[in-house]
């Protein structure tokens, strides 16, 4: 079958995640990865030869980083070269000869005036298309895309590459607005950013009818993305008050949480309640699910001990709770070291996932001591991707994508060098000599008393900007 050329235009956001997403989508639809490997990359543009338009449509039906896709009709280093190439290839326009059409000029790296755009459109006079121009409701959308390079301080006079072709589809970037945290019913302090959640769902290869599990579910933001891709979701969290929405409200200026806030309420809000199976209050470090149950994907953001505590059920003392206290007793929790959380997560996933199922999760790392060799490894898993999101000068978090390649036996263990991890004390640079009260007093003296709710902190422009808040580590 002859291959067709397609131009994928990616957003310049989270560009380090771009190719992991593209490869994952190829895997979701079981496309031949050969086409992916032959791709050509130019700034935000990726050129691929694919067997059919359907391939491109399917890629765009999942991608949250690609914003549009064009069937490439011509390409050139200069506009003249583009026209020369196109003149040799005019029969490609035949199926569209009578369609209502529009032609748009778009640029990357430079803004050009309307008059310049019209001038460019006029150079296409020779196209043998007879359909009327219809800008509002065209059947055929033609696009001329000009690329002026990536350096904003050194913009060339003429584009370094021009592309021309037929628009096919836009990506799924609209989903980000749909599941925006700004108007989501139930959010917490560390709800995952919609774009990152959707990317995690893509990396985890979530397909319709998959069973997906999140052991540190919180407000369920990652599972929302998984459900949007057709997954059926189950989540657990140790925080009883969080799952019952009885914690302090996370929204600026909110005095209390609504009575009907819950993870489920979010699923109802987005019309995906049928994908919701259950959320449980449970300690993920302990077994609570039958051994023979298998999940298709496990996606999670474990607590890092910075904005959410790292805890599990337990006590340093040994005692028996008196019979009369059992009914009202709240289990005591002990510190659950981040390194143990991650090792337990991987060990549990090695037993809980189906073969070829993926485990996708974040780990916080200290940027100065991070080395790729220090990442956790387990013989049951292959590390597929490792993408960095920079948080501060010294801290970042990495999204690890691991694929289960074989079943574990008694001897399989997860190996991890904890020195790469960003721990609480590294984040706060605390010498450990002060108590909480002393630190608070010190902070008050230096930075003044905390502002009232709703008042702007110095250096903050918008107190309601939830999206900015979730970029901080959890």
């Amino acid at each position: 079958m002859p291959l067709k050329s397609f131009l994928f235009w990616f957003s310049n956001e989270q560009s380090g995640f771009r190719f992991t997403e593209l490869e994952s989508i190829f895997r979701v639809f079981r496309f031949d990865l050969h086409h992916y490997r032959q791709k050509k990359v130019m700034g935000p543009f990726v050129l691929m030869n694919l067997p059919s338009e359907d391939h491109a449509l399917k890629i765009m039906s999942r991608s949250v980083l690609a914003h549009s896709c064009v069937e490439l009709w011509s390409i050139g280093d200069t506009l003249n070269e583009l026209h020369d190439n196109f003149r040799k290839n005019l029969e490609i326009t035949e199926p569209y000869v009578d369609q209502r059409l529009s032609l748009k000029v778009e640029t990357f790296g430079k803004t050009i005036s309307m008059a310049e755009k019209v001038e460019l459109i006029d150079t296409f006079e020779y196209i043998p298309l007879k359909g009327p121009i219809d800008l509002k409701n065209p059947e055929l959308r033609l696009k001329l895309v000009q690329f002026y390079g990536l350096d904003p301080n050194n913009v060339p006079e003429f584009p370094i590459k021009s592309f021309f072709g037929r628009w096919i589809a836009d990506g799924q970037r609209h989903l980000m607005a749909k599941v925006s945290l700004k108007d989501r019913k139930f959010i917490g302090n560390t709800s995952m950013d919609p774009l990152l959640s959707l990317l995690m769902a893509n990396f985890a290869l979530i397909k319709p009818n998959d069973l997906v599990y999140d052991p540190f579910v919180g407000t369920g933001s990652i599972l929302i993305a998984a459900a949007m891709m057709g997954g059926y979701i189950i989540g657990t969290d140790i925080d009883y008050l969080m799952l019952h929405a009885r914690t302090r409200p996370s929204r600026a200026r909110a005095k209390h949480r609504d009575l009907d806030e819950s993870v489920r309420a979010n699923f109802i809000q987005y019309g995906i309640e049928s994908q919701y199976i259950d959320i449980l209050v449970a300690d993920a470090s302990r077994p609570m699910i039958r051994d023979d149950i298998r999940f298709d994907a496990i996606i999670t953001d474990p607590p890092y001990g910075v904005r959410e505590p790292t805890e599990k059920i337990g006590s340093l003392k040994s005692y028996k709770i008196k019979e009369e206290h059992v009914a009202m007793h709240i289990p005591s929790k002990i510190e659950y070291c981040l390194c143990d959380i991650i090792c337990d997560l991987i060990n549990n996933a090695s037993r809980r996932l189906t073969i070829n199922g993926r485990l996708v999760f974040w780990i916080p790392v200290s940027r100065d001591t991070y080395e790729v060799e220090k990442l956790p490894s387990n013989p049951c898993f292959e590390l597929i991707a490792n993408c960095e999101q920079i948080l501060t000068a010294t801290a970042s978090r990495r999204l690890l994508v691991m694929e289960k390649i074989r079943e574990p036996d008694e001897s399989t263990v997860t190996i991890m060098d904890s020195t790469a991890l960003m721990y609480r004390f590294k984040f706060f640079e605390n010498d450990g000599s002060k108590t909480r009260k002393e630190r608070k007093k010190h902070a008050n003296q230096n930075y003044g008393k905390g502002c009232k709710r709703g008042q702007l902190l110095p250096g903050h422009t918008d107190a309601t900007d939830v999206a900015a808040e979730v970029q901080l580590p959890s």
Partner: protein
Amino acid sequence: MKLFTHNMLTSKMIRNVQVGYPLKLCASEVKITPTDFRPGFLSKVIPKIDWTVLVEAVNSVGNTEPLPPALAEDYDKNDDFLRKAHHALFEIEIEVITGEMECPETGRKFPIQNGVPNMLVNEDEV
């Protein structure tokens, strides 16, 4: 909590509990929430279901049509059977504060509040 979840849950997190399955279901109030019927998903999960446990759970919940006692052989083609299974697994929900599950070995009770089961055990039980 849906009966699908009940079908998976164990009380193995309690110290010295060997199997911890099935949890005894005591539901005082039950809600039916219609959800989309997806035969593809059902055919995929039914092999994972312990059917006897599900039948018992449906009976203990009461006021609903009983399930066929055994898994139909051609369940993935039997639409009527799939619809009944769908109803039992994903539409029956234990909602109210008084619902609970009980560990078969120790009798430890796990309450279900607002549809969310609390599977936390106390520190002296782990």
